[in-house]
């Protein structure tokens, strides 16, 4: 179950949405994409999985928990 946001969180998010809406798309993209090394995940140039279930299972078995790919 997701944690419900507080009223103050919702208000802060709304202000962030409004601020983002005032920025042009190119600027939003510029600040949104970042690159940091993700162990294991970034260590192969190509991976292909027959099913999403296979991919999820691989993530759970191989990636560090702190990356957040586990269920």
């Amino acid at each position, binding site marked *: 179950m*997701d944690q419900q946001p507080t009223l103050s969180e919702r208000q802060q998010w709304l202000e962030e*949405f409004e601020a983002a809406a005032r920025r042009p*798309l190119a600027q939003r993209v510029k600040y*949104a*994409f*970042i690159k940091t090394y993700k162990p294991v995940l970034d260590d192969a140039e190509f991976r292909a999985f027959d099913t*999403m279930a296979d991919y999820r299972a691989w993530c759970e078995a191989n990636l560090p928990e702190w990356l*957040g790919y586990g269920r």
Partner: protein
Amino acid sequence: MAAAFDYRQAEEIRDVFARFGIRYLFIGKSGAILLGFPDTTQDADLFADKSPENCSALIAALRDLGFTLTDEQASEILRGKDFVQLKTGPFDLDLIFAPDGIERFDDAWQRRVEVEHFPVCHPDDIIASKEAANRAKDRESLPRLRAFRDYWKKRR
């Protein structure tokens, strides 16, 4: 490791994929960001139609964008994998052919949103796929993403 994805590269995807007639949608957080969601992410996620014609054109388009694909890797895409992770080009790309929570590509295509000619999954579909995936990182981002969806719908 490729540098961070940037707007010029997003434009290249849009323009090259249009030239090759690819049916695809930005999905996941990258799709939400195109819709205006203020957050950060690392990779571009594309939901592509799994038809053989589309996959064949997709391989040609990816090579045109600068991705190096061996014949074996290209044949894996053609064989209809559900998920392909590519780090062989100018930026990292996740190709998703059967995202959790979305039944058919055509359904998502009908609901798509165009943002400056970028084809993007409807926020309801982005949320549905994250709810179905139910990873820790999805659960963390969903409350804010749902709030953004509500805001986005009111503004339309």
